């Protein structure tokens, strides 16, 4: 066994004493809920598709294990390594998105998937955290280098990514990334004037999307006027919440999962609320909120601008995805296919989330940012542990 004394200089010991353990605990809690919910919600789906009862459940266990290990490994990295990882993976993910446009398999009208080693991967899922970290770097550069306009580069990145995503087409992810970008721009110190200009442009763009993408129009129309019909999933979800009551119907006794096609993915929150009731539903909301708020407060104390921006960007990405999923489940928003982090079934989204949370865990470590490590590539020449972090911490 590795001794985990505070003065231990082994990198794992260092990791243990610098990691935000409450944050880690919250994520592990979500993973456990995801594990339970997959067993509750997926057998009926598997049954309906006439495949092995625990097909989804077993796969999800494997994915959860992979995600956990991946997240821990990423959280062991130092900020500069995080950034290199993000840029490397980002380029690969962009390439992957391009590739899907050429050879991707079409599922439900969009080409978002690539088959890699027998798995279906969705490159756009991995693109999101990498995009955020890279944009954060650009924004931070604005104040460290006067010879380059970081914001302009960040804007260019947004445009390129949006064009690629709209070609898939994956309008939901596109809107999500734009929102995160705008939030980061604001946090980085962007002017209110520019932000208002962007909001107006965004609204105009939404109107344009409404006009030009029929399924977008379909969903929005039906959200605003349910009497048009075609709101089957929403109606069933509302029924499920009502049916759940305070303590739920009990595990396995929920009915919604028998009638919803997306009971194990997009509508897993409704399934959870039906079987476990308001109390557990509130607990899940609380854990999500706790993870987000704790990360934000922790990042607030960082003295490194890039760490601040990258961390908050990532947590906003995580938070927005959570909020959109829950709001759709609770019929506060028109239906948009968005998974509930760590709880919905789905390999790509789980692995991408592990990457996101691994990065956040790394960026919120006590040694990050506060010690003002670095915000650019010039650190390459000077080994970290010699210059800054006296506890070591280089892999």
């Amino acid at each position, binding site marked *: 066994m590795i001794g985990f004394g505070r003065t231990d200089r082994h990198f794992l010991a260092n990791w243990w004493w610098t990691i935000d353990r409450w944050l880690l605990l919250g994520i592990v809690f979500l993973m456990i809920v995801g594990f339970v919910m997959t067993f509750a919600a997926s057998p009926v789906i598997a049954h309906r598709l006439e495949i092995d009862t625990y097909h989804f459940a077993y796969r999800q266990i494997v994915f959860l294990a992979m995600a956990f290990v991946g997240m821990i490994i990423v959280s062991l990295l130092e900020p500069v390594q995080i950034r290199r990882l993000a840029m490397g993976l980002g380029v690969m993910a962009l390439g992957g998105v391009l590739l899907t446009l050429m050879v991707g398999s079409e599922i439900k009208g969009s080409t978002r998937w690539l088959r890699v080693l027998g798995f279906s991967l969705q490159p756009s899922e991995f693109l999101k955290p990498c995009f955020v970290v890279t944009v954060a770097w650009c924004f931070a550069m*604005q*104040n460290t280098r006067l010879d380059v306009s970081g914001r302009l580069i960040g804007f260019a990145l947004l445009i390129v990514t949006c064009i690629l995503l709209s070609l898939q087409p994956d309008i939901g992810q596109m809107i999500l990334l734009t929102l995160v970008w705008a939030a980061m721009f604001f946090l980085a110190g962007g002017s209110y004037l520019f932000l208002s200009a962007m909001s107006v442009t965004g609204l105009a763009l939404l109107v344009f999307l409404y006009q030009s993408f029929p399924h977008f129009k379909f969903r929005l129309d039906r959200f605003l006027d349910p009497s048009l019909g075609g709101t089957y999933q929403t109606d069933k979800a509302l029924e499920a919440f009502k049916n759940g009551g*305070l303590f739920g119907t009990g595990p396995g006794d929920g009915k919604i999962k028998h009638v919803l096609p997306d009971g194990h993915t997009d509508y897993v929150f409704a399934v959870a*609320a039906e079987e476990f009731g308001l109390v557990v539903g509130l607990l899940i909301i609380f854990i999500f909120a706790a993870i987000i708020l704790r990360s934000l407060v922790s990042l607030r104390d960082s003295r490194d601008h890039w760490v601040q921006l990258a961390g908050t960007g990532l947590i906003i990405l995580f938070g927005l995805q959570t*909020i959109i999923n829950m709001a759709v489940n609770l019929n506060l928003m028109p239906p948009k296919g968005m998974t509930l982090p760590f709880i919905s079934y789905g390999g790509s989204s789980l692995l991408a989330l592990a990457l996101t949370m691994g990065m956040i865990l790394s960026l919120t470590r006590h040694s990050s940012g506060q010690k003002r490590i670095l915000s650019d590539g010039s650190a390459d020449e000077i080994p970290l542990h010699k210059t800054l972090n006296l506890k070591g911490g280089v892999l």
Partner: protein
Amino acid sequence: MRGEVMPSLIRPGGDLVEATNAQLGIRLGDLEGHAVDITRRRIWLAVWVFTLIFTLLGARLAHLTVGGDGPMTVKRNTQPQVAQERPYIVDRNGVLLATQISAYNLGADARKVEDVEEMVAALAAILPGLNRQKATRFLSSNRRYVELMKGLTPQQYKAVLTLGNPALKMEKADRRFYPHGSLASHMLGFVGSDMQGLAGLEFFLDRSLEPLSQESLRDGRLPVTLDIRVQHSVRAELAKSIKKFSATGGSAIVMDVENGNILSMVSLPDFDPNLKPWNAGHQRLFNKATLGTYELGSVFKIFTASMVLETGAAAPEDTFQTSLPISIGRHEITDPHGEKRPLTVGEIVVHSSNIGSAQLALSVTPEVHWGFLERLGLIDKPELEIPELTNPQLPRQWGEVERATSSYGYGISISPLQALVAGAAMVNGGVMYRPRLINDDLPLGVRVISEETSTHMRQIMRAVVTHGTAKNARNSKFMILGKTGTARMAGPGGYDSSRLMTSFLGAFPAHSPRYAFIVILHEPQKIDGVYGTGAGWNVVPLSTDIVERIAPLLGVMPHPAYKPADNIILHKVREVL
């Protein structure tokens, strides 16, 4: 640390940038420190926004789950109350088919039991069906309520009362009782231990969207279209034949062609709804007449023939060459014992020619063909009050091969009920009635073929009896018409010639059919004294026996023109048609 700007240790861009900045009079450390402070302030805003949104989500969740008009949890426990209102079911003559009998459930407060052994002994003396081991275990526990036995008779109830033991608790829990046992089991269905309808009409009683109208109830009794006398005759004859031919099972339905009333519906083997039918097993619970779908074989040819006559693709006297097999793609269609001469549309049916039938089907366009099957309700799930219904199994494509094989009943599986409903429309003047078990409104019919086509179909189907594959029915004085089908059953390795399903879809009396029927035998075996295993040798005589028994009950008179078969002058088919 907070707010303190630490000296920068590393600078990007090296000296050049440093120099440029120095020229501009800017110290980068200040600039970045300033940006960090702005971000710090704005992160607070993000914290508040997230807090607000998550609070809203939580509030919305609370509102949806426990707010509004109360949770549904309350509703769930009220279901057993319907038990008291469950109507009796009677047949069309008022004969009781399903009723309630008084019964009681026995429980006990285990904490108040003083001597377990003594109590179990006392109870067992009254209740022969008591599980003594279980009762001992339950009574030895410390629970406030343990259930000892369900379904005590009034006599047993009285006897238990006289024990005078305050620990024993009894409550009235009426039980559903079916006086005729298994006779109409598949039609009536059954109820679960808490009187919830689980199958058949019992299921319908719980689930029908609208409450039963008062017109459909007579003194709290629900009359159904079934005639228990007919049902008894049909079931008895079917059971006899199943035994005689060592068949694995069979089914039969009798329907009034003028309104769709189902007079009898039998699927064998069946079960006794009084005796925990849910334990009866799939074989017995499965309703072959409505839930099973089968490739009915040649019975389908009547639909093919009526299609070409109705659409005018061929006139009754047009002939088709059937002496040579025809090839469609890699598929070859042959006739087992063909007539080596051109056949008319009617003769194709009478002699059951696959080659001819395929040509008939291909004489119309795929759209017309599909549309006609759709019009006859052979593409969709049929409608009936019971829940044991299913979609037909249709070919995945609709090319020439599929159309040709389906013209003689292969590659398309439908339920016997569907075949009967469509078949009745062939002979009743061309109107297809929605089948029904509850006769509470005007019959629902749509015209599917013209009266003229229907007349042709009657002639053709009568000729099947007088000159074709159903000659064993020609002696009936009730003038049967119909069409036989002998289909090989599909097994894991393709069609199995040793496993046949024989069927007869018919109606009587031929000159003006009033009742249609379909009778099916699964895997009948060859027996001594009978020439073959085809439909003509087992299911046709069976149908004749059924008709001979039920026609008098239904008030159908023997035909005045009836003469014993020996005296019938056999015309050539061509002249008859």
